């Protein structure tokens, strides 16, 4: 679908900077709007009419809001919660308590079965404060070469955030953690690999970087599983196959199809060494929740209006009027985009959410630095199928964050576990993985006898028990083992319409037929409160941010007509700590010209790909 008429761009609509700078030379060249609120006083009420109403400040919605606002659309962005992030939020412990209660009261669509254990050492005037912790509902890692990263740089949202490296990927096998052999140096120096294995591994690594150009190698296996392909075609052995598929590829099962798995393995390899000797990054202070906030701020700077604690009551597609539960109204000329978590009462259009993601989050009183590389505060631990005593069919993926992430205090860590397994089996797998993590960290760390008698009591059998309060449904069999002290243990089930490790299906958004009046009858459900609303997909089990930009672009195209100008903004703030020119006057202020034309700061993510290819050439043995 092509756009019949382009909406005027941001710069065309608001060539405002020239007015206050008094420099009319700028009017032709400036492509950047003023900071919202700097130029004109903002109205004290929400707008009466907007192009787009977005409900929910999750990742996809926030990226979309920023893209639309910079493109020139007027956007009203609301959230029923009193915090940003929605399904991607980063929450304090108190907010988690509240969230668990709401999930168990069925107040939040798309989640259920939330269980929370909370130690008494978190609370007012306790050892730890609720706000010392930032707990992500959808923990994510950012590949150094990925579409979201490009958008973060292009939109300047990266300047609101701080990123840290993550280089350690452990594969759990035979009751121990194997650190990943992911560089060619590692491969060459690894004493455990036979010469033949090294040769085969190098052969595969060379192939996978350009796999799409070599269909003759993988096409015969296109419908087969990646494990079969690696065993048969590249004669790799199980430890290497599992590392490649589950730790490097972060695939979910042995049945993952060859093209998808190759794509995912390549994603890791081309991300390696883009910013340094690591493939992924994560944002400090919270993951997806911080990224969402960054894009929301960007949207606000471009003029979008923000209102938290706002819930839609109903939308009338005929009059285009959206009514909120507080009685306020807005006319929406184009589209309403809404997360399923934000749906009004009486909704009948939420797409089927048949895929489960089961998550567990533990706050642990242990720094876990044994698992991190030097100077890092995060690690990924993957439990491949069959590696746990529960006989897990699917992978359990674990993200470990230490205090350096500023998501938790010193000497504590956050463990995020997740699986696409469902029901009781999921609980068994997550419990087994948790136990394996605990055993491992107890074994690997020494001197962790806890000395706080107020918190830990010893029962008749000599086992320590945390003096605890329980919330929601409790962990009935929960007994802390040895010296791993849990400050919090949370588990929940999340539902999504996106298949595991896949990206959103664009067809999902096609239930919006109201723009095409001829078809509207097909979709119009009398008395439904959400006729004409386009629902986004809940986050999938994907641990990377990879689905986010795809989904936001599909929605953007539906609204604007084309995604050609998705974040097509030239900013002039290229100032990047260049040495200021001009004399300084002691004791007084002198102003430096902060505008620089250093275009060289622009990052061309494509360049690194070429380097990766070179890298391949040098891998010949």
């Amino acid at each position, binding site marked *: 679908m092509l756009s019949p008429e382009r909406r005027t761009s941001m710069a065309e609509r608001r060539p405002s900077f020239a007015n*206050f*700078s*008094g*420099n009319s030379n700028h009017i032709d060249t400036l492509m*950047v709007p*003023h*900071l919202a*609120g*700097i130029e004109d006083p*903002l109205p004290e009420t929400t707008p009466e009419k907007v192009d787009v109403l977005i409900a929910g400040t999750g990742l996809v919605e926030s990226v979309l809001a920023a893209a639309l606002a910079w493109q020139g659309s007027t956007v009203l962005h609301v959230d029923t919660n009193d915090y*940003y992030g929605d399904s991607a939020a980063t929450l304090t412990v108190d907010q988690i308590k509240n969230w668990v209660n709401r999930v168990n009261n069925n107040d939040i669509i798309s989640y259920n079965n939330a269980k929370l254990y909370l130690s008494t050492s978190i609370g007012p005037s306790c050892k730890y404060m609720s706000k010392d912790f930032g707990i992500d509902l959808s923990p994510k890692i950012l590949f150094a070469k990925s579409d979201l*990263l490009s958008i*973060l740089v292009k939109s*300047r*949202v*990266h300047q*609101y955030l701080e990123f*840290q*490296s993550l280089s350690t990927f452990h594969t759990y096998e035979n009751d121990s953690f194997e650190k990943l052999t992911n560089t060619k*140096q590692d491969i*060459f120096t690894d004493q455990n690999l036979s010469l033949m294995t090294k040769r085969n591994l190098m052969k595969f690594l060379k192939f996978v970087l350009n796999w799409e150009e070599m269909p003759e190698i993988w096409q015969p296996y296109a419908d087969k599983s990646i494990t079969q392909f690696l065993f048969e075609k590249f004669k790799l052995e199980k430890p290497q196959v599992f590392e490649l598929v589950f730790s490097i590829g972060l695939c979910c099962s042995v049945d993952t199809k060859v093209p998808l798995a190759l794509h995912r393995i390549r994603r890791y390899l081309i991300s390696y*060494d*883009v*910013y*340094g*000797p690591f493939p992924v990054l994560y944002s400090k*202070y919270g993951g997806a929740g*911080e990224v969402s*906030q*960054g894009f*929301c*701020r*960007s949207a*606000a*700077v*471009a003029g979008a209006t923000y*209102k*938290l604690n706002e819930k839609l009551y109903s939308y009338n597609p005929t009059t285009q009027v959206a009514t909120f539960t507080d009685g306020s109204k807005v006319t929406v000329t184009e589209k309403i985009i809404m997360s399923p978590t934000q749906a009004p009462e009486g909704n009948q259009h939420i797409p089927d959410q048949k895929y489960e993601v089961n998550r567990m989050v533990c706050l642990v009183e242990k720094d876990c630095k044994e698992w991190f590389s030097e*100077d890092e*505060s995060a690690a990924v631990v993957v439990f491949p199928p069959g590696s746990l005593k529960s006989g897990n069919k699917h992978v359990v993926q674990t993200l470990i964050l230490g205090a*350096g992430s*500023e998501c938790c205090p*010193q000497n504590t860590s956050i463990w995020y576990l997740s699986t696409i397994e469902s029901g009781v089996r999921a609980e068994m797998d997550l419990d087994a993985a948790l136990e394996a993590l605990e055993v491992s960290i107890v074994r690997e760390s020494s001197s962790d006898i806890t000395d706080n008698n107020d918190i830990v009591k010893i029962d008749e059998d000599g086992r320590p028990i945390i003096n605890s309060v329980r919330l929601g449904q409790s962990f009935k069999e929960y007994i802390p083992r040895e010296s791993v002290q849990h400050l919090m243990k949370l588990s929940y089930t999340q539902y999504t319409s996106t298949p595991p490790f896949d990206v959103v299906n664009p067809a999902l958004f096609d239930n919006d037929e109201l723009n095409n009046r001829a078809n509207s009858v097909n979709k119009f459900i009398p008395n439904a409160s959400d006729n004409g609303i386009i629902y986004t997909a809940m986050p999938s089990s994907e641990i990377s941010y990879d689905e986010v930009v795809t989904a936001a672009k599909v929605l953007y195209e539906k609204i604007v007509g084309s995604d050609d100008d998705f974040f097509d903004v030239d*900013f002039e*703030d290229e100032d990047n700590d260049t040495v*200021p020119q001009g004399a*300084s*006057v*002691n*004791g007084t*202020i*002198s*102003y*430096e*010209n*902060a505008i620089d034309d250093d275009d060289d700061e622009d*990052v061309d993510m494509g*360049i*690194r790909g070429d380097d990766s290819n070179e*890298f391949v050439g040098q891998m010949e043995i």
Partner: protein
Amino acid sequence: MSNPITSIKLVLLGEAAVGKSSIVLRFVSNDFSENKEPTIGAAFLTQRVNINDHTVKFEIWDTAGQERFASLAPMYYRNAQAALVVYDITKPQSFIKARHWVKELHEQANKNIIIALVGNKVDILEDNEDERKVSREEAEKLAEEEDLLFFETSAKTGTNISEVFLGIGEKIPLKGPEDEHTNGGLNVTEDQRVNLANTANASENASACSC
């Protein structure tokens, strides 16, 4: 002749129409200094100031309107080293709101944030001293109680504007930026931070394999 540069994240707070933006524009705009213009981009306004032998780079975060419906994100306060809490000396209500923002900053922001309380629009008094509705004494009392810098300014005439930023710049410990990330005794060094706008040099990797 490269001066050490200290980056300071400064956030703006205050009731609507008290002149927050005018103060900043006065500070960064070219009629405030002869040949300079502010950098305006998606992220924030930046302005460099030389104080003695040191360059202070102010990264000025506007609320972008997100405060209007009590929707400021935690990100806004995060790691802010300085804040301007602005009120209008002719509007008592705006001073009440300023108290609220000071309280909010003490709860949400870094413990050692430097807050400047700024009573704006003193130019109005030139015509009629009766227009003053917030006494200097009252504001000074608040500043003393809460350990704030205090200025009365006029964005219109430029009175005291540079003093606000110079005052903040002088109070900030002018060391390396790594000191700004201390939090509850935790010291995270800058080298842990990855700048997404700078891709690394891959030559190290290429040279590592000599076979």
